[in-house]
């Protein structure tokens, strides 16, 4: 590597397109083979792994939901025993929230943000590789424990004292808590990468008012992660401390407090909803603009609404705790703030509707999912305003009404836009189109199946059916609706089966997409599908909010970047004026070893506190290996 320095630097100035592409590809491609695959730091490869992993967890979590629906289809069923049922609803919720929803949204950011801001890789690409291995191992921890019949059984929010040392024997609650630590570590790492990529690696000219809305939404999401996730890491760590070394945080007999857990958990848990929803709002904004064939209506109000949502998200957590007996003034405050967040949500909905109204909408599958989202999310939002009121919440708390509400918000608010986004960006990620026919079937069945499954749960909740019961007696008036819900769930499942068949088939043999199949406006469509390892042959210069819609004669680009080292442009935060030709790290196997060392420490500390001491040594060694300069051209300055 040292001899590289002796050659004069080679820049893209005056190189033929094909010669330039050959040089860039040599510099940026991962080495072939098994170790090359473990060492790669290409954001697209890692994002693809993240997305596939998250969808595998969606399938696993979905199968658990099916198992619960079979058990509840008729009264006093014997399909599952109570203990297994507890493990199943805990693993279902934890998988969907921590191993599917958050990682898949971050994965979309990892794939799309660098392309949409016109750079060659995400900031801190090795940290990105590390974050993937960490979440993969955290997910395996939960699912291996499930396979061994030792999965957590305390619900996805693991309230103490049920999860504490007195009522939660064995290691089940510890496995839940440490799985949380894994997923939050990974999420925090990705959040830092997103913030720095958006702040410092935007293409020259992409000033703040030209940042694509999806990128804005991911930026706000990253900040929410940074502010909220430390709370859950504190919670999970102190829970393990209470269980392992007998600290007294949650023990009221020794000055601790059970409600402290709820405060800390929901201080994270409520922003979590927006961590999932804001990226979805960014996806919707992008899809609506492209298929309405016009720029988005109300760019500035939408950005303001994203930021306002991000701030208000931190003032709502107590509305999960209305029935614990808090001071009246506190309850009133949190009712008001819970209703206030409907304002930015409303602004977003009206901007999207106005864009559709003023444009010439083309009803392709992605747009169908967006319209399904608007309908479903509005229903979920309305029941949200209902449960924000204390007297109403006191009636329906811990019933199926709440189950219905949060599935409307989470599936309606995040999964529908996500599926639309997959249909929309699949051509970019794979170079092939998904089937429009199967897409319409998938949408129809999922939309219908979802509403038939979850709408009746509102009624079951009002009829008093509590959540998390493994069965119910025949005398209770719930059997008919439960059977209906379980049958409807089959419709929902069939929609997902079609979606997965379509995705797999199209990946292998879909119609070639070309660089820009939707005639969209943002930068990711300015390069090939799938994009080469270096993303762009020449880094674009941004002169408008939709660079591909406003270009007159060809895309404006830069010249003068070195092609024999991994190099990209660093620009200023507000105006995106170019500041430096910064290098981007090469592939490295060290993030993988660092993730293994971290995992050994975290899993060991479930069993003994000394794991933290001894486990730190291999972590330190791998981190030094990671950061120690190797004398490559990337290290020159």
């Amino acid at each position: 590597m040292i001899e590289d320095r002796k050659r004069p630097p080679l820049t893209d100035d005056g190189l033929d397109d094909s010669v330039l592409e050959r040089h860039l590809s040599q510099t940026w491609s991962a080495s072939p083979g098994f170790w090359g695959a473990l060492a790669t730091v290409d954001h697209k490869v890692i994002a693809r792994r993240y997305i596939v992993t998250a969808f595998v967890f969606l399938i696993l979590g979905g199968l658990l939901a099916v198992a619960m629906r079979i058990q509840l289809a008729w009264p006093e069923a014997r399909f599952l025993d109570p203990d297994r049922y507890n493990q199943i609803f805990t693993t279902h919720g934890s998988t969907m929230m921590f191993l599917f929803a958050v990682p898949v949204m971050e994965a979309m950011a990892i794939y799309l943000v660098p392309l949409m801001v016109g750079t060659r890789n995400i900031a801190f690409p090795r940290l990105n590789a590390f974050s993937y291995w960490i979440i993969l191992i955290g997910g395996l921890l939960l699912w291996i424990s499930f396979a061994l019949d030792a999965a957590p059984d305390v619900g996805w929010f693991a309230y103490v004292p049920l999860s504490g040392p007195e009522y939660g024997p064995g290691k089940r609650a510890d496995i839940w808590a440490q799985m949380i630590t894994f997923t939050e570590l990974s999420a925090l790492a990705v959040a830092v990468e997103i913030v720095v990529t958006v702040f410092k690696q935007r293409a020259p000219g992409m000033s703040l008012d030209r940042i694509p809305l999806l990128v804005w939404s991911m930026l706000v999401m990253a900040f929410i992660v940074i502010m909220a996730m430390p709370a859950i890491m504190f919670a999970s760590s102190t829970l393990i401390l209470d269980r392992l070394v007998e600290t007294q945080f949650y023990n009221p007999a020794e000055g601790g407090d059970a409600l402290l857990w709820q405060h800390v958990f929901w201080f994270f848990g409520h922003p979590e909803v927006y961590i999932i929803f804001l990226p979805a709002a960014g996806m919707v904004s992008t899809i609506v603009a492209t298929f309405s064939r016009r720029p988005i209506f109300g760019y500035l109000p939408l950005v303001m609404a994203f930021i306002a949502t991000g701030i208000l998200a931190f003032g709502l957590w107590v509305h999960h705790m209305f029935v614990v007996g808090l001071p009246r003034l506190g309850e009133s405050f949190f009712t008001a703030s819970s209703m206030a967040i409907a304002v930015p949500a409303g602004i977003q909905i009206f901007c999207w509707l106005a864009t559709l109204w003023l444009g010439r909408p083309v009803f392709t599958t992605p747009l169908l999912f967006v319209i399904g989202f608007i309908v479903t999310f509005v229903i979920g939002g309305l029941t949200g305003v209902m449960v924000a009121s204390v007297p109403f919440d006191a009636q329906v708390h811990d019933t199926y009404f709440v189950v219905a509400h949060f599935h409307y918000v989470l599936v309606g608010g995040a999964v529908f836009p996500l599926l639309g986004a997959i249909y929309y960006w699949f051509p970019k990620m794979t170079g092939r189109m998904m089937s429009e026919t199967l897409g319409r079937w998938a949408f129809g069945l999922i939309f219908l199946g979802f509403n038939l499954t979850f709408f009746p749960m509102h009624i079951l909740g009002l009829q008093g059916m509590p959540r998390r019961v493994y069965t119910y007696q025949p005398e209770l008036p719930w059997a008919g609706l439960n059977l209906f819900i379980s049958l409807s769930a089959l419709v929902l499942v069939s929609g997902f089966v079609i979606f997965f068949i379509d995705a797999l088939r199209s990946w292998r043999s879909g119609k070639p997409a070309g660089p820009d199949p939707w005639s969209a406006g943002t930068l990711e469509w300015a390069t090939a599908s799938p994009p080469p390892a270096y993303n762009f042959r020449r880094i674009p210069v941004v002169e408008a909010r939709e660079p591909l819609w406003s270009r007159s004669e060809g895309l404006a680009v830069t010249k003068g970047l070195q092609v024999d080292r991994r190099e990209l442009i660093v620009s200023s935060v507000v105006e995106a004026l170019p500041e430096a030709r910064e290098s981007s790290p090469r592939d490295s196997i060290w993030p993988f070893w660092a993730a293994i060392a971290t995992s050994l420490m975290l899993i060991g500390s479930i069993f003994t506190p000394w794991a933290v001491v001894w486990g730190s040594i291999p972590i330190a060694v791998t981190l030094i290996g990671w950061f120690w300069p190797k004398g490559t051209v990337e290290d020159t300055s």
Partner: protein
Amino acid sequence: MKERVVLDVSKLPMHDMGIASPAWWGTCAFMLIEGSGFALAIAIYFYLFSLAPKWPIDAPSPDLFAGTVLTALLLASIVPNILVSRWAKARALAKVRIGLIVMSLLAAAPLALRIFEFPAMHVSWDENAYGSIVWTLLGLHTTHIITDLIDTLVLTCLMFSRHGDNTRRYGDVEDNALYWNFVIVAWLPLYVCIYWVPRL
């Protein structure tokens, strides 16, 4: 797609320090994460304080000596820390090397004092919630000192190696100094909580 070249970036530096460096922003983002963690830990301290009929719970107030000396030492270390940062900006290799050795010692010394802070609490972590939270606050901050000590030691070795005289390394030295200032600033509210709030 047709391209037209409108901007030549070949004259830009191959790396820049401070706000032009992604590493600087990354350090800030991690400080924001850890700062949120500290703020939350302090909020929990006051939450438990507000619940307790008497604070500290079943223990005398902590002894001031070790913690106060440590605080004074940390504050004093700001001066050489800022000097190292300035020398790094000026790319003065010899001074940076000496400064980093001094900073390594100044990061190790608080650890020696910290050993005496835990017994000065007069409560064990498993006796009651007061013991749990003060041990956690001390432990959380100790991990930050240890992390920065290891950072500084590795960086010192690097500056003595052939990789030392490089804009990137000087930027690393500046970022490391920034992080040490954070470790000090984060300690001040913790010091007030741990040592003075029980005396209110």
